[in-house]
């Protein structure tokens, strides 16, 4: 801990964001990176707690107090090593993570938490600036072949860890480009995609075979995969969006959020988009149904496309402005948050249940809804609250219900859990020997940081599976690091 009294001298200062009027006119990241000195001062607020609750808050177990201290003392290279020791892609989490670590920071009890995410991103900047992306080549080659299916954050982390352990890894992606939700779900104004490309380059150099445009389950089939590989890790995500089966769902202008977001990401990347299927918000009144992060991404994207208005509605009631006693620190605070996209001018409303879409000429012109309340956990409609919101475009951002169960999951005969996700044990192993699953596919939809953490965990599980010959000592070591 650099400065034991740092938290008493310095208050939390978050990084600036570019002014709304400016940023909505382009697709660049909205954050203005703080100066190295400012970051140092913020890092000095870390108290190196006896129990670093941030460790617990962070699914990756990032060694937050250690690198905060190193940043404070200007030891950026060491900080880089400590950060990369637990996190394969800090440049990603440093941008898009909601930072549960900060929520559980002990300064958050009565003060304001350390700007952990900013410090993390600033270290990751250094990684890119100083070329620490040097491939980490494994010293050994085990000769074992592993297929990782799906190149979202879980797949990337899993593949990288396995390659570094000396296995021959092929990372399959159905799409034409790798990255999964990182590439197609996250708008550039939150994360520009250059960093992803650099990482992929590093992974290729580390020996990961990157195989896009490959629809595993079709060609190759699950059986082929099992034959050709010593182990398989499924990181296929939770791709089935929650639908809203109400009258008018089929109308033009009602789309899933991911269709909208991935199209825009393609446009920015210069990938041609089939204009006949273009979903554009320009000049339109947009309604986003769903109050989560994906919804927010739709909001920000709509503004940048030139939407006339954006309204975001949510089924759940409006959260309280401050923590309620029953939701104490270090729990994740269930409070009203306003995303940067929402700040850009969205109308927001809560406790609204959509009953049907209005139409005109096969196109959506509005939604019909009413207000609801929750009694004993059950939703109840409130009489006399019917309302109509006119619109030209509806984006459904109500979450995802699980991995695609047809195709690969079916072919391999994987068992599912009651929520429809792939069932695994603590090491990520499924019911089929040699087949593992990680990330949203087994966890259900979640944060990027959880996906990376899962990818790492399951990579360890795969590695242990492949090395079972050395059973005794390895088993003990695994206990030790559990």
């Amino acid at each position: 801990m650099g400065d034991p009294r740092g938290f008493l001298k310095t208050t939390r200062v978050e990084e600036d964001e570019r002014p709304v009027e400016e940023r909505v006119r382009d697709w660049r990241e909205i954050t203005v990176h703080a100066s190295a000195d400012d970051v140092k001062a913020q890092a000095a607020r870390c108290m190196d707690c006896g129990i670093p609750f941030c460790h617990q808050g962070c699914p990756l177990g990032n060694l937050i107090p250690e690198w905060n201290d190193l940043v404070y003392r200007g030891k950026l290279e060491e900080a880089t090593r400590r950060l990369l020791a637990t996190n394969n892609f800090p440049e990603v989490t440093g941008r898009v993570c909601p930072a549960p670590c900060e929520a559980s920071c002990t300064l958050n009890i009565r003060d304001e938490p350390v700007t952990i995410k900013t410090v993390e991103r600033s270290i990751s900047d250094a990684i890119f600036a100083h070329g620490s992306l040097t491939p980490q080549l494994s010293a050994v080659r085990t000769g074992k072949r592993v297929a990782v299916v799906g190149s979202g954050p879980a797949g990337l982390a899993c593949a990288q860890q396995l390659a570094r352990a000396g296995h021959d890894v092929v990372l399959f992606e159905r799409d034409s480009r790798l990255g999964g939700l990182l590439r197609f779900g996250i708008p550039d104004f939150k994360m520009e995609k250059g960093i992803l490309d650099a990482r992929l380059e590093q992974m290729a150099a580390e020996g990961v075979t990157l195989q896009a445009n490959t629809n595993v389950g079709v060609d190759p089939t699950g059986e082929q995969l099992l034959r050709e590989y010593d182990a398989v890790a499924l990181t296929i995500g939770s791709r089935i969006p929650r639908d809203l089966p109400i009258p008018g769902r089929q109308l033009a202008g009602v789309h899933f959020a991911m269709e909208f977001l991935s199209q825009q990401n393609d446009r920015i990347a210069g990938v041609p988009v089939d204009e006949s299927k273009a979903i554009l918000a320009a000049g339109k009144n947009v309604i986003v149904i769903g109050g989560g992060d994906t919804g927010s991404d739709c909001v920000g994207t709509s503004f940048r496309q030139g939407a006339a208005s954006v309204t975001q509605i949510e089924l759940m009631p409006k959260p309280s402005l401050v923590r309620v006693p029953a939701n104490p620190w270090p729990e994740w605070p269930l409070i009203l948050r306003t995303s940067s996209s929402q700040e850009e001018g969205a109308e927001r409303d809560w406790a609204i249940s959509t009953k049907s879409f209005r139409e005109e000429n096969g196109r959506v012109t509005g939604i019909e809804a009413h207000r609801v309340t929750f009694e004993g956990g059950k939703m109840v409609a409130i009489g006399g609250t019917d309302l109509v919101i006119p619109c030209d475009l509806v984006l459904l951002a109500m979450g995802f219900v699980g991995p695609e169960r047809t195709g690969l999951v079916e072919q391999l005969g994987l068992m599912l859990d009651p929520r429809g996700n792939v069932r695994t044990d603590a090491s990520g192993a499924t019911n089929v020997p040699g087949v593992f699953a990680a990330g949203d596919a087994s966890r259900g939809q979640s944060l990027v940081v959880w996906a990376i953490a899962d990818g790492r965990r399951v990579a360890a599980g795969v590695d242990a599976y492949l090395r079972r010959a050395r059973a005794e000592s390895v088993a003990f070591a695994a206990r030790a690091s559990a």
Partner: protein
Amino acid sequence: MPLPPARGLYDPSLERDACGLGFVADLHRPPSHDVVAKGVEILRRLAHRGAAGCDPCTGDGAGILLHIPHAYFERVLGRAGIELPNAGDYGVGQCFLSRNPSVRAMEVRVIEDAIRHHNQKVIGWRDVPVDPSVLGPLARASMPVFRQVFIGRMCSVPAFERTLFMIRKRASSSATQAGLHDCYIASLSSRTVVYKGLPLPERLGAFFADLRADDTRSKLALVHSRFSTNTFPTWERAHPYRRIAHNGEINTLRGNQTWMRARESLLASEAFGEHIADFKPIIRPGGSDSASLDNVVDFLVASGRSIAHVMMMLVPEAWEGQPEMPPERRAFYEYHASLVEPWDGPAALLFTDGIRVGATLDRNGLRPLKYVVTASGYVVAASEFGVLDFEADDIVEKGRLQPGRMLLVDFAQGRIVGDDEIKHEVATQKPYVNWLESNKIDLHALPGVPAVASMDALERRRLLRVFGYTREDTHTLLVPMATNGEEPTGSMGTDAPLAVLSERPNPLFRYFKQQFAQVTNPPIDPIREKLVMTLVSCLGGEGNLLVETPKQCRLLELEQPILTNDDLAKIVAEPLQDFKVAVLPMLFDVPEGHGTDPGASLQSALEDLCRAAEQAIDGNASLLVLSDRGVTERRAPIPSLLGTSAVHHHLARVGKRMRAGLLVETGEAREVADVALLIGYGAGAVNPYLAFESIAATDMAAPARERAEHYIHALDKGLLKVMSKMGISCLSSYQGAQIFEAIGIRKDAIERWFPGTASRVGGIGLAEIARESLMKHASAFEPGFDRIASDDDVVDVGGVYAWRVGGERHLWNPGTVANLQKAVRLEDQRAYDHYAKAINEQHDAPFTLRGCWAFESTRPAIPVDEVEPAAMIVRRFATGAMSFGSISREAHENLAIAMNRIGGRSNSGEGGEDEARFVPLPNGDSKRSAIKQVASARFGVTAHYLVNADELQIKIAQGAKPGEGGQLPGHKVDEHIARVRHSVPGVTLISPPPHHDIYSIEDLAQLIYDLKAVNPRARVSVKLVSETGVGTIAAGVAKAKADTIQIAGHDGGTGASPLSSIQHAGTPWELGLAETHHVLALNGLRSRVRIQADGQLKTGRDVAFAALLGADEFGFATAPLVASGCIMMRKCHLNTCPVGVATQDPVLRARFQGTPEHVINFFFFVAEELRTIMASLGFATLSEMVGHSECVIPRETSHPKARLLDFRELLTPVNPEDSFLPKETMDAPAGEDLLSQARPTDEALLEGTRLSLKYGEPTTMQIQLCNADRAFGARLAGELARKYGAEGLREGTIVIEATGTAGQSFGAFATRGMLLVLEGDANDYVGKSLSGGVLAVRPPARSSFKAHENVIIGNTCLYGATTGKAFFAGRAGERFAVRNSGAVSVVEGVGDHGCEYMTGGTVVVLGPTGRNFAAGMSGGLAFVLDDERMLAGRVSKAMVDLEPLTPEDEELVQRLVKEHEEHTRSARARYVLSTWSKRRFVKVMPHEWRRVLQSRAQQNAGKVAGAHG
């Protein structure tokens, strides 16, 4: 008459004792009965220093040693028709024999055979007449038959004593061989005879008729009254022994015994010839420490050394760094240090060979010994003044023995031989100075060798893995040590698993816990009292102890035991022909393939190593280097502790240990505890090479060389601390002393490799030890290892000191803290259940011993509603002792309010309490702490504080740092803290490691008596920390009349403690509690006391186990703090606690969010959980549940090491015969009871001052005192404080004019309004915690000696005094005004360590001071009359300056000396005043005090002059 056999956790070898002793010698007259009668009188007057156990008529032992009463024996034997030769031509054996006549006949035959074997004549036997009716039933039941054997001299006079010695040895060893265990020869000599046994001291004369006969005459009576920690009647353990009587304890006993046994094979003496075989073992097994020392003294004296010589070599004074010591004497000590290690520990020793009688103190002088010389020719030495009455004008000298000094009376010459004279005589017997000069080897003088190159990064990283380094080792330990030169500090105890319960491979070191001194001997302050400590280590071969030759000091002498890599290279280069060095690889083969037993490989390597060591010695090596350098993929290191201990013990067994030194070159050792262990198990020096490499490779500002120096300095400092924790001063005594115990190592492994080490819970053996070593080794040879780019990435995270992801497990972790806080804040049972489940269900990942257990119901379950209500249970709960100062006022008061609301007890902690808290709040709440703690610094301990308590707790040790003191730095001492501690803001407050009024068990009894005197309504508790032997100490504490004994675990939290103390000292409370309960029950003492368990108690299940193991009450500290908002920041020592719990910063304190309800909710959750367990076990009340350890069983686990644990000893239930009745929490304290046995003077005092007490009217009364009048004035002080508060009465309202010799603690706690004038003298602890009263002690008007050259008061006077005045017309003993914080005093000379730890007040010394004056003095002023200009050489300059007096000072001192003269009529004062201008006073000014005065002067100019604290 053996002690009971070991059972459960009771181990007879752990018994301890301490005592009162004395002798009276008549220099001029022929032997007289008067001397014998005087000896018996001394015993009577020292009775309060002895103890009685469960049977009030059976004492712990008393005895008397006399010159053989020839006339008496001649008469009584003549009556039986036996004719005695002339005096001196026969010997008398005092024999304790079996009561079984046929066995007795065999014993007699064995003795007679021995006499004849040595060609002496059996003159006859005599039955010693005794009166068993004066004995208690226990003593009577075990009483032996006493017979005296008379032996005719058939050899030359000079050879006779030696022959008698040989007869005694032969008889004893034959008796042992024949299984005659009752046969004991108390003395066998032609000069002296010993009468001893188990009568109460005052009844010894009534028991032995011989002592009453008029013609029983002697010139010497040497007596002893014993206070033992157990109550088992053992007649032979009474003192005096044949040569010595001892008050104190030998801490280094285990090492002394091992070394003595190791020397036996080298012993040879012409005088003994082949008979020497009869003497072995020299130290008779099973004897006490005193008996063992007597064995060695006896043997060495018989071999021809003079008794003074023997005492000087076995118990040397501190000679290292003593500029005032003559060189030949220093050489004597240095030479003998190469022959024998000191028998170290607090000791007042009386010794005699019949011709000379002497007394000596150990180097620390921690036991009192006073002496008086009369014109009529008596010399009396005793633990106290006042053991015999002499006319005032008969006394020519009154003094006290100083540390390391000797008092010797020579009957042949009829005079006292002074310390200097006798020591000069002994020291010049041989040219020791020359011998040393030509033989000692100095490391610095050895030829240099090229610097050792650092290893390359890859090798270093491999070894970091091989030796299991962690990131914490580097960053938390080594870097701070190499930067600051000291061990880092931590907070909040430890909650990680024991080494044997961890899943990580732990260094073997971590299975061992340091033991420490509590009650029966004091720890030392290694900083402030460094002058008595030394780290000098001598390496090489020793010779025959019985001869003195120059070659015996051909040893390598090291200033301290840590060698750098270059130092070691110099030695290994073998520059000296006659000092050969053998390097022995300490490695074992990595077993090939599966199924091979790694233990077998390790074992054969150990056997090879031992063999190689033996061969090297046979090849004349003087130094063995055990080295784990040379690790390869096929060769793994033997854990260095295992290798070292194995070689040490093997060599001792085969009689070769003394022929070579042992040096350990290891990559494994890195922290203080590691090095301490290696030395404790026999190493003379250690080279922790990998630690040096790691430090050199770490990115740090300081240059490499400086880092290494700092690191060594930190280790040295830590070693001193570890040694001092046990009260050991010299590294050579610590070496091999094995002051450790193991947790979780199998018995057979301990016996084979670590013999003599306690391991109460069996567990792992060699196979698991090897496996842990191999796991680490294997990980260093993983493929790809060489690509890891940094040391930090190589090593494990650690997570031992604090919870870390991927690190060691902790009970306090994010989940448990969050759930507990949620539970208590929202009264959320579910959250509590989550919390309790996480703590309680440790099945396969246990943390604690109790985590490995389950309940077993032995009776039918009952419905929960039949269990006593939670509201009753919580009254048995107490919060831990956390001082206001360590935690914030808000947190402290919050706990107090909560505990007062539920009828539990909160604890003030050390550091006083704001008086405002004694008054209840308008809403009925109270912030008053029911328990007031009395700790070593006595901060804030006043009469007013003490009477405002329901319980007074004497803190002997605390779990996080047993045996250590503490320090509150000046910058943390704000106005408020200073006020309650009666100190001054900005002045550092140091807590000494020991209580300076508790150096032994009888001292503790005295303090308990003092506290009960001042507040008879409070119960007195004594807080101990769990370690092996704590039960035995607890038995002593129970006999010292404590009401409650607290057993704390090793894991307790604290504000600040060195990391190695948090981790490595003490044991879990489960062990200490079970032992305590067991030993108390076995001793019949369990019904006398309550037991409280304390240490990381968190849940109802924890409480249930504590109750089943024997606890009546339960202490909680960390958990209620967490309930109040603590989040285990472990930053208490930095004052930056962000939740306002452990900080004094007002900004942070404002963040405190705890409420009394939170704390109350916690306790009720725990109590309710407990009730469900009670119901399932069928206990309706806690009282029924106490001690039912049969309800505890080990539970199944898959944990590879926990599975091996063996709890049989720990869970052995108490014998059904040893029944007991648990005390109810609300039972009255025993204070009144104890005081009712006190002398009537106290009652008289209360009665005589009734009007003053009631109405504040003035009273003057006269009273006669004797040394049995202890704590005189304390009861009155308490009553005054109760009635009149801290303010007391107008000064001089009550005037007591006393005469005689006051007992200990004269004027303790005296409050304002009391003036106690004593004409006579007083013993130790005068004016302890003086609270405003005025004391004056002056010699009787008729006395003829010069008052200012004689001692008038004992040791440790004005300890912790806060206000008041004290005038002493004479000299004081050691530690005058220790930790004085406000009293003003004038005295005419002081012993060593005067004004130690003083924080305020003014002391004027009109005479010489001893050494180490003003050590640790942070405040107040001392003025010393220094005409001889000696002060500069005797002052400890670390914290003070010496300077001339200012005019204001002159005025102040003059005024005080005048006042002194008025109170004491001191001639010295008159002389000083009349020659004022010629006198040279020196002012002793603490640096901090000056700073405080200056800043005050700036604040309000002109108000500084008084300078009273």
